[in-house]
């Protein structure tokens, strides 16, 4: 960790996003007091906790894979922290049952934790962490070991529980869609230092540098000047000379983003409606695993497109060749806001 300076708002759902090895778990362990820091300070609720042992920090911690105590049943797992802090038996029972109800595991209280499914274990671990009234909740990749369907459902569940309890939460993940869906704000952590902190939209539409851009799957971001409502939930926008139709019901569009995988390339103009189609010239070709990334110049805008390697071969694409581009309508994401607002650091990088 170097130069990490983070300040969370009370009750915020804060997601730390980064590739594996970025230092996400270490960051959580530093906050929990499980990892001794060589320099710097950690404050929770206006209190300097840097020198405090973990048991005095009042931090709820849900580690990866949940590590439920196998020698205790679900009820006792949740009650563990309350018992250590000497709460009376009647209060323990009330609190455990309330949390079990909140997390939807009331029917599992007498079960052996080893017999639970991944999603159930996650809920028990969450209830266990929440039981002793923590000031901050730390979630280490809470959804990464679940199947996709369960993970998607639990994203909503985690947000619902957060809405109810309003507890300041730090959730670390390597999963960008998960971060975008859940976070009030996101911090991008890479190689032990912070790349960018902001709302999901700020990160997505104003990535601070190439590393952040790459981490959010390198969308093409275009600044829009004119914006006209054409009805049916569509807007016509002018982005540096490119006229585009975008799906948007709200106000003025200031930026749009489209992933390279949603920019289709063909040699000749294909049949179909003439919406979001352009002609451009290939300026760069870069193999990228099983795909090829092409940079195409369209009226001075540089758009990136991804083409599967075999299709690239069949099309015999070369630098300087003229191609047709289609920007997939449903793949276009829009940012509503002021395009000319003061974003010194962002603009400088872009």
């Amino acid at each position: 960790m170097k130069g990490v300076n983070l300040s969370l708002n009370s009750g915020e759902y804060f997601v730390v996003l980064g590739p594996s090895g970025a230092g996400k778990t270490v960051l959580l362990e530093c906050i929990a007091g499980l990892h001794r820091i060589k320099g710097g300070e950690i404050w929770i609720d206006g209190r300097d906790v840097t020198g405090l042992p973990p048991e005095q920090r009042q931090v709820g911690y849900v580690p990866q894979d949940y590590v439920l105590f196998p020698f205790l049943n679900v009820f006792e797992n949740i009650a563990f922290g309350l018992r250590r802090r000497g709460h009376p038996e009647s209060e323990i029972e009330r609190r455990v049952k309330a949390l079990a109800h909140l997390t939807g595991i009331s029917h599992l209280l007498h079960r052996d934790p080893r017999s639970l499914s991944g999603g159930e274990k996650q809920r028990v671990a969450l209830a266990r962490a929440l039981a002793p009234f923590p000031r901050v909740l730390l979630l280490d990749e809470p959804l990464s070991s679940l199947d996709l369907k369960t993970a998607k459902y639990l994203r909503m569940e985690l947000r619902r529980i957060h809405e109810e309890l309003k507890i300041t939460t730090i959730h670390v993940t390597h999963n960008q869609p998960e971060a975008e869906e859940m976070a009030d704000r996101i911090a991008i952590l890479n190689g032990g230092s912070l790349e960018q902190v902001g709302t999901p939209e700020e990160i997505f539409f104003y990535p601070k540098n190439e590393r952040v851009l790459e981490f959010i799957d390198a969308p093409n971001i275009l600044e829009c000047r004119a914006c006209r409502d054409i009805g049916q939930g569509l807007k016509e926008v002018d982005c540096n000379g490119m006229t585009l139709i975008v799906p948007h019901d709200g106000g003025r569009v200031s930026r749009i983003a489209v992933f390279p995988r949603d920019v289709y390339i063909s040699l000749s103009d294909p049949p179909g409606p003439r919406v979001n189609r352009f002609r451009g010239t290939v300026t760069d070709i870069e193999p990228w695993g099983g795909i090829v990334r092409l940079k195409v110049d369209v009226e001075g805008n540089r758009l990136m497109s991804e083409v599967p390697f075999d299709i690239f071969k069949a099309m015999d694409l070369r630098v300087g060749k003229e191609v047709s581009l289609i920007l997939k309508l449903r793949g276009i994401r829009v940012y509503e806001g002021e395009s000319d607002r003061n974003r010194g650091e962002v603009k400088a990088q872009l």
Partner: protein
Amino acid sequence: MRGTAGERAFIWATASALGLLALFFVGLVVSMLAYVDGRTLLRALLSEEVLFAIRLSLVTATLATILSLAVAIPAAYAISKGRFPGKGIVDSLLDLPIVISPIALGTALLIFFSTPVGGLIDARVLKVVFAKPGIVLAQFTVVSALATRLLKSTFDDIDPRYERVARTLGCSKLEVFFKVTLPLARNGLIAAFVLTWARAVGEFGATVTLAGATTMRTETLPIAIYLSLASADVGKAVAVTLILIAMAVSALIAVRRVTGRIYRI
């Protein structure tokens, strides 16, 4: 799918070695059973001397095991979880009592009690040399390192994240040890207790050197075998040997059942 001729030969060779080894040990037990008739065996088993040896072995081995575990549990925890200079050397030294001949350990103990300090302890604090406490001390000396080794591997196997989570849930380091580490180590503790106890029951070399081989005084089961053979009472020697084998087999079955439960998750 059948393997090649070479693979089959290899499987045959390994299986044969295993079969021969099993046959060898079964043969030893059968030969003992064939050597003495049932009545001689029963008489020897119920003799006052053998019953004394059984009682003495049970009491001393249990005491030595409790003492060993009392030291081995914290020691094994320290060497498993602690970080200190010279840890590797301490870890290697722990193996010494396991590989050194017990008679050498007994000799070292005997020499210690010949020194002024040892002599004072023997005379004023507790009579050890050629006395029953000597049996417990000799057994403790031989088995404590084994207990530490067994428990270290138990503690090594415990995922440190359990202890970390417990810290965030309000446990101090000491509470984590008693509330999380020991319950997680439960099966390993039972296995270590049984194996250490079985080894203590069978201890001979250090015991005979420090506590001597006196009939009906320091006569544990292995010493009873030694004394019976010395006085050519083969019936008694066989009876006691069979008792020791039965105890060892029971201990191993118990460990198998306990540790089997550990890994069958």
